[in-house]
């Protein structure tokens, strides 16, 4: 252990120390080998495919004969000349942010409410009922939403019935509603699932803190504000950083299923863009370029979120 404290030897010693430490923990290292291989095989090896972003897949007949010449940055240039690609980026970010805010706020709110419920049976029931939709297929959820939000559906019947709207609102066909519809549907589907992790964080809060707060005269609201919320703060930060890494993935299923020609300029996400050009039109070059752009942006977002969290003195991912 001495080499750690002797400044002169520190540089070489650090390296030696790493291997010595590794040798000392070989059982642990061995256990991590499968995961290491998994990540290598499924996350790093496919990156070789990024090379397709610099190839020309425009002519199917040539592609079939294995002729895909390199074309430099042509795919990227084409991509950034397309207004619909910018639209896709905008839609992806907008829906991600809406999902993140709605999803987190609703999950924390519900978790707090459940945490305050003393009747165990009621608590369990609510928890089960709210997380069951998580297991429904998005196809089913969207089909239900299409009926509920149709111009002659229950929502419009309610709105016109109580006089909030004079004529039925065309929820499914107007772009300006699309992002919010996606947000609402996602909240309905995922809110219960999202609470699980917060509830578990709340159960790990030391009960003596609540008792101390109560003795000091804190009411229920104050206990939530000053004990519960600070107690789940680190969980919240970690989840936030992870979710920021996923900001470029606004989901694909819901936009694909709920979207239609009328709202296409609000529903097309980067994933749908990639699907349209890569799989439906077989232009792997453009699709890979779009996917690559997405990954790069996601890495930048993740690293900066992590950096900011570190600066704020919070727990971080790495």
């Amino acid at each position: 252990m001495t080499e750690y404290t002797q400044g002169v030897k520190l540089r070489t010693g650090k390296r030696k120390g790493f291997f010595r430490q590794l040798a000392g923990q070989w059982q642990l290292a061995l256990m991590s080998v499968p995961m290491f291989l998994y990540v290598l095989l499924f996350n790093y090896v496919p990156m070789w495919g990024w090379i397709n972003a610099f190839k020309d897949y425009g002519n199917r007949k040539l592609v079939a004969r294995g002729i895909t010449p390199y074309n430099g940055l042509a795919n990227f240039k084409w991509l950034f000349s397309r207004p619909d690609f910018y639209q896709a980026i905008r839609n992806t970010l907008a829906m991600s942010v809406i999902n993140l805010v709605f999803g987190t706020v609703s999950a924390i709110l519900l978790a707090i409410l459940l945490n305050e419920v003393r009747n165990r049976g009621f608590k369990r029931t609510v928890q089960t009922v709210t997380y069951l939709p998580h297991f429904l297929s998005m196809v089913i959820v969207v089909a239900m939403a299409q009926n509920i939000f149709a111009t002659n559906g229950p929502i419009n019947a309610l709105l016109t019935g109580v006089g909030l709207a004079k004529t039925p609102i065309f929820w499914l066909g107007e772009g300006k509603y699309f992002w919010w519809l996606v947000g609402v549907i996602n909240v309905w589907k995922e809110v219960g699932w999202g609470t699980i992790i917060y509830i578990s964080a709340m159960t790990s809060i030391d009960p003596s803190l609540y008792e101390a707060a109560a003795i000091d005269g804190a009411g229920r609201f104050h206990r939530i504000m000053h004990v519960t919320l600070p107690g789940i703060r680190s969980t919240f930060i970690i989840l936030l950083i992870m979710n920021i890494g996923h900001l470029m993935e606004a989901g694909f299923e819901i936009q694909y299923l709920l979207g239609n020609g009328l709202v296409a300029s609000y529903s097309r996400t980067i994933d749908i863009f990639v699907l349209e050009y890569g799989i439906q039109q077989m232009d792997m070059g453009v699709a890979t370029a779009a996917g690559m752009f997405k990954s790069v942006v996601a890495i930048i977002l993740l690293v900066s979120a992590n950096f900011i969290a570190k600066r704020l003195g919070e727990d971080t991912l790495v």
Partner: protein
Amino acid sequence: MRKLLSILLVLAMMLALVPAALADGDLEPITLTVFRGDPGDQPYPDNKIYKKIEEEFGVTFEFEFLAGDLDEKLTLMTQDLDDLPDLFDGGNSAEKLIDAGALINLLDYVNPEDTPNLWAHIEPQKNRIITKDEVTGEDVMYIIPNYGLPEGPQIALSVGGPAFFIQKQVLAWGGYPQITTLDEYFDLIEKFLEANPTNADGTPYIGFDILCEDWRRFCLINPVQHLMGHPNDGEVLIDVNSDDYPTETFINRAYAKPYYKKLNEEFQKGIISADTFVMNYDQYIAQLSTGIVLGMFDQAWDFGNATNALLTDKKYENTYVALGLVYDEDDVAGLLPEGWTIEEHYLNGSLPNLDRGFGISVSCECPERIIAMWERMMDEDWQLLFNWGVEGEDYSIVDGRLIMTEEQYANTQDIEWQRHNKARAFFESSPKRQGWILEGDLAGNCWEPGNQNEIVFGLMNDYDKEFLAAYGYSKFADFVNPPIELAPYGEAWQIDKAPIEKDYNDFLNIQDSQLPGVIMANPDDFDAKWDAFVEAINPSCEVYSNFMHEEVLKLVDAYYGK
């Protein structure tokens, strides 16, 4: 123990004998993997037609039907050309298979000497079916068309393709009027709706549906060319009377505007509902099947499932008649291309369904056996078996005429029955004989029961009989003009748009996102919205028009053997 061993031994020997017994004939039994590019139903293992195929050809099938998006599925399947299904039907996107090099050139096997039946089948249309490979210049045929090569004079009993459809009860209610223009059509629907806002159950009727989901957007786009008096060329209008075949997209032209203006008016009157633009195909079929939709523009095959459902429920008055509407000359005065006259032509000459049907994949190990099987199946006995079934059970021959009883014919419409007794999944995509039986004892009969006089008219329901009698017509095709001769280029929608795919995609996306908005526009904004739409779509229209014109000219040259 010894007893158990001996039993096992006997069993093992019996199992070993089975393949030997099967291999007794000339042909080693094989299982062909089959992909169909559309959804379908698996046949039951006891299916009698597949049993006969197995007996004669030693062939059994393993079917996979499309689930999900066709283009995605085909792209993924063709990533590995060594592991393709033997018989590969690429559905509406079979060009993808050809471009990807997934199919073998059938001309290596099909020729007048080795396969006289198949050759005779394609010979009349060989200039359309056999094309030249752009790269190698050799003659190629990847797919024998699954439909559209009929024998004898063309049969047109009803409209199987595009038309404006209207429920029979609406015409009956209106006193069986002659409807030829858009104004008359929507007038009648409006008046009917006014008098009958709901059906007997109290469900409100829907005046006019416009399906515009994905490729079925043709229900929104295509009507203009038909209103101009032209059969179906997809998204372009071609002047067939000029040697140069001028070709242009019609959606961005002045003569398209009156149609959308009319739709805009009907939308304001509530005849068209906004929900129609966000509805998917399943919802559309569900709506039609309940009989609450009074009219729509569509192609008859596209809503066949709805028609069957209505027939099964005996809601004959809710089934549809195809009308051949055209523009009133006054509607488009001054807007027509030079020298254009409007005459209704919804029905076209028989069109080979090019590049549709089974191709044989490059990974198939026994293409010659499949070809030999198809060759034999072109004989009368097999064609009758596929089309009519087993004699005595499914149909009978009386005085040289093929006939079915009402029950037998009803069976053929029943999906469950078909899974036991029909080889649909295989036969629909295989080469087949259609039209008239021209030779032998059965000459004068039709290959398909659906065209046979005794069935079409003998088994027609009473509602339809009275309906036709009221009009003084003998068949439903009488509502439109008789078919015209097929243009030399065929029908232009068959042209593969892959070389201009990105522009074509823009062309479609702009229509999808803006055209419904034009229809739903406030009447004061209509002109502005229409102009904005035309301006947005013009650039891709120009690329598309030029491309199609070149391709049409190539097809014309090929047809005349140049």
